[in-house]
């Protein structure tokens, strides 16, 4: 039983950390530029496709990931300079709609280039098996995902809290006008942050590709989860994104695993078996609504 809980907790951690890769970029764009970017999920999809295509062509998963991050970052920067910049001053409705349009366009372009069928992306042979972990087996690749997630979280923490660039980013998230007044080149900062966020998207897409599937529409479902994460964590806060990701990852996975059997203790098996999965799947949204009810600006609001 403890082994089951431990394994499920690891699964939740892995899921949460991958969400964090997406949420980190999203929360900064949202916080600094006050911009709702629905196309964030499309960058994740594009990153995954690039990784799959390059991995197939080059035969190396590492080359695939590297290229995908680089190209997606460039695409992100291009998108920011050419289009998104025009939307910062617009209302949220315009932002939602314009980036919704980008989702439609990105999906079709990917479909035109790579076809409607999912693309195959396999993890390196060495990682496709299990490793022994304190007495039980756990997939090596999932452990790698956890490692990468922890590493990125650590690097981001160092970058944001211990460098000048990070100071600007934090300043930008809490008060944009003031940062401009201090003489920071905010336009360049925005482009850089956006490109970095895009690179993290590509990383998440490439890493999750072998585990899930590289297919059109893969960005949409995970995008909503990323939004839930940043709203829970507080818009603009990296720390909030991390806490929110881990909360969502663990609550979702453990809820799915434990809730049905937990309900069986109190209710009849039939009621429990239909109610259990239903409750488990809405758990994170209940969590978000509850947090917004008590703390309408999330757990770690960046603006103050």
């Amino acid at each position: 039983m403890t082994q089951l809980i431990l394994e499920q907790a690891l699964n939740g951690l892995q899921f949460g950390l991958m969400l964090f890769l997406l949420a980190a970029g999203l929360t900064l764009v949202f916080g600094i530029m006050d911009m709702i970017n629905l196309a964030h999920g499309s960058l994740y999809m594009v990153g995954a496709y690039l990784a799959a295509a390059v991995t197939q062509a080059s035969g190396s998963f590492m080359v695939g990931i590297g290229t995908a991050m680089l190209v997606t970052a460039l695409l992100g920067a291009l998108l920011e300079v050419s289009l998104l910049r025009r939307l910062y001053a617009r209302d949220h409705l315009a932002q939602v709609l314009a980036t919704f349009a980008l989702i439609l366009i990105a999906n079709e372009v990917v479909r035109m280039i790579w076809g409607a069928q999912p693309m195959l992306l396999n993890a390196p042979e060495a990682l496709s098996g299990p490793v022994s972990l304190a007495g039980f087996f756990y997939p090596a690749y999932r452990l790698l995902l956890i490692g990468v997630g922890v590493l990125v979280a650590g690097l981001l923490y160092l970058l944001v809290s211990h460098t000048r660039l990070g100071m600007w980013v934090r300043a930008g998230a809490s008060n944009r006008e003031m940062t401009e007044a201090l003489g920071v080149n905010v336009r360049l900062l925005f482009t850089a942050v956006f490109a970095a966020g895009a690179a993290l998207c590509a990383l998440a897409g490439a890493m999750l590709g072998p585990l899930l599937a590289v297919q059109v529409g893969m960005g949409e479902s995970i995008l909503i989860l990323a939004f839930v994460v940043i709203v829970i964590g507080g818009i603009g806060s990296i720390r909030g994104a991390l806490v929110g990701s881990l909360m969502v990852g663990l609550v979702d996975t453990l809820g799915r695993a434990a809730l049905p059997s937990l309900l069986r203790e109190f209710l009849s098996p039939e009621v429990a078996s239909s109610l259990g999965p239903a409750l488990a799947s809405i758990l994170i949204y209940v969590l978000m609504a509850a947090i917004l009810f008590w703390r309408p600006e999330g757990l770690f609001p960046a603006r103050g």
Partner: protein
Amino acid sequence: MGLYASSPRRRIAAAMTLVALLALPWLMQSLDQGFYVSLASRVLIFALAATSLNLVIGFGGMISFGHAAFFGAGAYTVAILAESGVVSAALAWPLALAVAALLALLIGAISLRTRGVYFIMITLAFAQMVFYLVVSLKSWGGDDGLLLLRRSTFGSLDLKDDTTFYFVVLATLALVLLALDRLAHSRFGRVIQSIRENETRMEALGYPVFSYKLVCFVIGGALAGLAGALLVNQSGLASPNLLHWMQSGTLMVMIVIGGVGSVFGGVVGAVLLLLCEEFFVEISPHWQIGLGLLLLAVVLWAPLGIAGLFGWGRSRE
């Protein structure tokens, strides 16, 4: 922009469109193109759904990203009632409306405490809850949705007949549009539009802003429920995809293309979007690129939508 004002010219245009739409089934039948009557019903139902969202977003200024929940609630109510033997439209449709209204009351009462982005996100979260709840409940069909094997019955009217059904849909939409036009010019309509313009000031003038917004939200939700009730009759399936957030997004696209805050904006947008879908899909499977570009262009250069381009939107100088 400012407060909505309709001109006599616009009313004449609406009346003429209505006459043309009345003649449509006759024309299509004589061309042996009955399919298009059914398609037209579908388009008009989506026009109704988009119009209901336009009331919330365009007039009330509340950017709700969870409108699909009410649309789907109406559809599921009719399907669930039919499962248990209630097939009378006179009973099922008002109930669908009421269920959607109740849901909107619940969601609105909580969501309207938040502002801006948080409002967008919390309405989305609630819609997702409804979506996942329905998908998980096996007795409501789960992922498969609920089939409606027979259309509702409506007195002596035979709704199974596509043309009759079309006229019922057309009548419903026409009534709703008339009511919306009246509402836009009523005291209530002026209040919600002014709240959209300046909420703090309305509060300082002594309006219970929360109640007005909530009532507007509930009316919008109820009308979406009615649209859902009609749609499940048209298609014969209450599908969880009706509740999906992409559906909310599509309705938003319709009103933005058609014209936010214009009585006919939702109709124009729905007609344009669905007809494009119907015809361009045969030209190229990648027609959605075109839709995406059109949407981008509208957002960037014509924020008042098609209705705004032609000057049938809010009053201008």
